[in-house]
């Protein structure tokens, strides 16, 4: 297996382009973020922040200052509302399982949408197996929540509603404040969680104003390091921790705090928020150049998700008809463009993304979907590279498809 991978990597030698557009699945961390992290491995703050010595106190100071910055960027009331976790998956698990555990007497109903990420969807379905009633709110063809159905779904026994602020695959910016209001009006005790991973640093929002009880923030989705994220827990909202161990500065997540990663997350947040409008304008401009460039150069393409202001500025999700997604990702990689496909191969059938199915895409439309996310660190040149390579890659794969599958 490893030999095969070495060969695959050798096939990439000497590439002119090297453009990472797979921000959905990991991050390419900019140098200034890496540089900010390095001292915390061995020069300062490498101690355990709960211990009574200099490296420990340095760590404590660094973590608290980091939490303060992220709290202010996201509009928290206090820094205690920021709880660092090892990432978005863990924060979403904590939000859902931690709420379910703390509200046992109040009811057993959970509401999510049809297009939540699998670290919400699978967790909710796991609870369903243990006796919770799960309702999935449908979305329209652009991925917008059906708020009428949300209103109907929430009742006295609903303990948790979890809805993403921005969809991770198709970039739909949800009316999340309105959704929170609807939920609270139906049941003021229902805990409202939003996975804001694709909103933080990308669209303007303020957690206090949003009306959410819990919100997930992610580091790698803003080009910070992987392995770190945070769950916002509003003052006086109680959820239980889901892992046991030594509790330090983070009351909901045991284990030794990862100070370098927290510093990286904070540095990436600073870069995202220092010139917020400039950065998001830049993302939108590069994303539009990418999308429009593809639409003008390639025939038979579909945009998945909404256009304009109701779409996150970084997200491009395009279906290339008669072009199988996995084959296209490999072809693009061999030319130095790194993207992901909306379908994942199971044993027998290619499983289309549940998000694309929920917005009404047919299987064969979903199979050729490619998800790309631009960052504020991409350049015009990166997008030009992608636009030079994508049309010829699609053409080659379509050449293999030929007349196969034509009606």
């Amino acid at each position, binding site marked *: *297996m*490893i030999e*095969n*991978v070495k*060969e*695959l990597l050798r*096939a990439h030698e000497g590439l002119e382009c090297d453009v990472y557009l797979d921000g959905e699945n990991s991050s390419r961390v900019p140098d200034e973020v890496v540089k900010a992290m390095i001292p915390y491995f061995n020069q300062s703050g490498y101690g355990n922040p709960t211990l009574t010595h200099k490296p420990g106190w340095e760590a404590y100071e660094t973590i608290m200052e980091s939490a303060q910055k992220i709290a202010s960027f996201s509009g928290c009331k206090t820094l205690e509302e920021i709880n660092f976790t090892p990432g978005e998956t863990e924060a979403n698990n904590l939000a859902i399982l931690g709420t379910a555990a703390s509200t046992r007497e109040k009811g057993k109903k959970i509401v999510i949408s049809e297009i939540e990420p*699998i670290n919400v969807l699978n967790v909710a379905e796991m609870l369903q197996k243990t006796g919770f009633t799960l309702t999935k709110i449908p979305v329209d063809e652009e991925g917008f929540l059906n708020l009428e159905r949300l209103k109907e779904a929430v009742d006295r026994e609903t303990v948790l509603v979890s809805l993403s602020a921005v969809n991770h695959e198709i970039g739909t910016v949800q009316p999340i404040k309105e959704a929170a209001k609807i939920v609270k009006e139906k049941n003021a005790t229902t805990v409202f969680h939003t996975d804001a991973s694709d909103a933080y640093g990308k669209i303007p929002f303020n957690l206090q104003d949003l009306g959410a009880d819990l919100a997930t923030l992610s580091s790698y989705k803003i080009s910070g390091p992987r392995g770190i994220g945070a769950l916002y827990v509003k003052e006086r909202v109680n959820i239980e921790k889901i892992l046991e161990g030594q509790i330090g500065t983070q009351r909901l997540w045991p284990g030794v705090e990862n100070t370098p990663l927290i510093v990286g997350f904070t540095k990436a947040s600073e870069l995202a928020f220092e010139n917020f409008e400039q950065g998001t304008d830049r993302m939108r401009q590069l994303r539009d150049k990418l999308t429009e460039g593809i639409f003008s150069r390639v025939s038979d393409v579909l945009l998945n998700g909404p256009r304009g202001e109701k779409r996150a500025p970084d997200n491009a999700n395009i279906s290339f008809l*008669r072009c*199988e*997604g*996995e*084959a296209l990702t*490999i072809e693009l990689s*061999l030319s130095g463009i790194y993207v992901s496909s909306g*379908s*994942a*191969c*199971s*044993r*027998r*059938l*290619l*499983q*289309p993304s549940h998000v694309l*199915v929920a917005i*009404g895409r*047919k*299987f*064969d439309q979903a*199979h050729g979907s490619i998800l790309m996310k631009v960052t504020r660190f991409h350049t015009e040149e990166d997008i030009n590279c992608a636009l030079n390579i994508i049309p010829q890659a699609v053409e080659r794969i379509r*050449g*293999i*498809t*030929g*007349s*196969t*599958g034509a009606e």
Partner: protein
Amino acid sequence: MSRAPLPYNPKILELFQHPKNLGKMEDATVVSVAGNPMCGDMITFYLKINDQDVIERASFESYGCAANIATSSIVTEMIKGMKLEDAWKVSYKNVTDAVGGLPSVKFHCGILAVGALKRAIRKYFENKQSPSWMQPEPSFEEKQALEEEELARMLSKRMKAAEGK
């Protein structure tokens, strides 16, 4: 749903980048199809068969992943110049070996390619006397191809039903 890493071997990469016998054959004696676009996996085979029942030429088109493309391509290479009787004996195991092994989630690609081949041979004998070496009941690969297509149809129906609700 797991996203298994797919460490394709050099042979598959080579066939993906430079597939042999690619493209529609205008003067094909027989054309067969296996899979459908909903599976994310579909192959068309074109065979030129002479009157001695020898495959003179074979070509393919594929809507599918790298493994699908590579296995289809290798099948057309393997059967070129073969008598139909010998081509019928090609199994998905031979194909998997010929491409130097497949990741387990991609076994079905080799099966589908052989399913398409066997359908083509069966189709060739449709209005002729069936040879003794070709069993009347579907081979393993033909059965698997049918199952995959049926599964996709079922899922599609379920989706249509869900849309209507």
